[in-house]
């Protein structure tokens, strides 16, 4: 089957970026090198094509009640113009997907889902909404391109391209029908890098022009086009979960350290509530920990973690952190081993190498 391409495919081919198959999409790994792009986002700003992300509209009377039923966060607490990070779980607590949803109004929500889960999520939403007669679910992914413009200089650069006051768009809020460089966008102050920045949703046919306009406007600030590689190292340092690694159908959001997005004290029932409430109260069977390698080696997804020769868990993500210049990993471990300072071993190609549990997240803006 041919790989899907975003409207920006010709843009990154023009710039010579390497592309890979990412969940059926032909996407750029990097433009100028992962380390360079990573540094650009931490120090200046970088722009990412994330048009592969799925967009789903849930609308009709009862929308918010329905969202409350399928999501772990307290969706009733959100307001028009606000974004909220949440998980959707199965009854057993495992995760269907993690996502950010936008409350357009009390009867309409925009859900941004992981590309690899798009079909699964739409089916899940449709099935679960059957008892909510007024609620409709529509996959509108084809109607949107998405750009993420991230980094400390993002606001300065973007402000020069719009009359809208970007300062008024606070963290995790959004505005519709904003004109940026002549293009109509939905803009939110959100992202997946641990930096300040924006995500822009727009008609696919306008994406190449806006991509070029932002890069041109940001030239003086050193804005760079960035690929999936830097997106992954940036989110990793900030400890933002990646579905398929920190979260799966077998990993609950409590285990993944996402308790802040699981509100078990709400009165309304939601799918998975029983298991998640118990895990919150009694502690989950496994917990996500941050580790730093003491011996030389890089932990990678799936590597076994041991303590005194006994298997205690697995690495979910790991890399050489470009900002911290250390070999770091996230690991799902038996809870008693998750205290910072605790020594353990990672099995890297049949060698047991020493590592130590460290505080999370690895990187916080303003450090």
């Amino acid at each position: 089957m041919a790989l899907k391409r975003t409207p920006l495919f010709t843009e990154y081919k023009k710039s010579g970026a390497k592309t890979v198959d990412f969940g059926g999409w032909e996407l750029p790994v990097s433009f100028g090198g992962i380390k360079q792009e990573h540094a650009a986002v931490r120090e200046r700003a970088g722009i990412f094509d994330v048009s592969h992300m799925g967009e789903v509209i849930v609308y009709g009377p009862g929308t918010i009640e329905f969202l409350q039923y399928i999501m772990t966060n307290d969706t009733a607490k959100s307001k028009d113009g606000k974004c909220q990070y949440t998980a959707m779980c199965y009854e057993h607590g495992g995760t269907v997907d993690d996502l950010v949803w936008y409350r357009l109004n009390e009867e309409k929500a925009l859900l941004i889902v992981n590309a690899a889960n798009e079909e699964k999520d739409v089916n899940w939403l449709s099935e679960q909404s059957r008892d909510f007669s007024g609620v409709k679910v529509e996959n509108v992914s084809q109607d949107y391109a998405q750009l993420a413009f991230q980094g400390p200089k993002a606001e300065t650069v973007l402000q020069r391209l719009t009359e809208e006051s970007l300062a008024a768009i606070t963290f995790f809020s959004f505005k519709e029908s904003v004109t940026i460089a002549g293009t109509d966008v939905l803009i939110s102050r959100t992202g997946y890098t641990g930096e300040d920045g924006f995500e822009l949703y727009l008609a696919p046919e306008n994406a190449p022009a806006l991509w070029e306009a932002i890069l041109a406007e940001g030239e003086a600030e050193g804005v760079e086009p960035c690929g999936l590689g830097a997106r992954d190292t940036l989110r990793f340092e900030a400890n933002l979960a990646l579905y398929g690694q920190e979260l799966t159908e077998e990993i609950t959001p409590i285990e993944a350290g996402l308790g802040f997005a699981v509100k078990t004290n709400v009165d309304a029932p939601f799918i998975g509530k029983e298991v998640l409430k118990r895990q919150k109260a009694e502690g989950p069977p496994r917990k996500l920990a941050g580790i730093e390698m003491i011996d030389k080696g890089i932990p990678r997804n799936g590597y076994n973690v041991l303590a005194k020769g006994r298997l205690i868990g697995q690495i979910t993500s790991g890399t050489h952190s470009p900002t911290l210049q250390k070999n770091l990993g996230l690991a799902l471990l038996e809870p008693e081993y998750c205290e910072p300072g605790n020594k353990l071993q990672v099995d890297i190609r049949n060698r047991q190498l020493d590592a130590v549990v460290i505080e999370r997240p690895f990187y916080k803006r303003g450090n």
Partner: protein
Amino acid sequence: MNLPQELKYSKEHEWVKVDGNKVVIGITEHAQDELGDIVFVELPEKGDQLTVDEPFGSVESVKTVSELYAPVSGEVLDVNGELEDSPEFVNESPYEKAWMVVVELSDASQLDALMDADTYKQMISED
């Protein structure tokens, strides 16, 4: 793409520089380009035995780990210890500063299985 004519090349993207009964081994410019920013190089120790087509170390980029496969068999006479602290040499200077190991050949006929620069170039253009 820089492919020095005097070197031999393996299908696993190593280069081999022959000097009598000794060879120097590294990875090609094409290999480092495919891997991206190299952040870690794991090499054998002096005195270790390499076996042809078996892994003898690994090169890791930010994104991924890639095994190094021995293009020849033999004893490791020397290892480039500088790569431990400066893995970026693999990106900057794959044929010079990023030589990896010196090996004493145990079977010189294994060199016949390696490619010359033009054959290797042909192979990577077909990838």
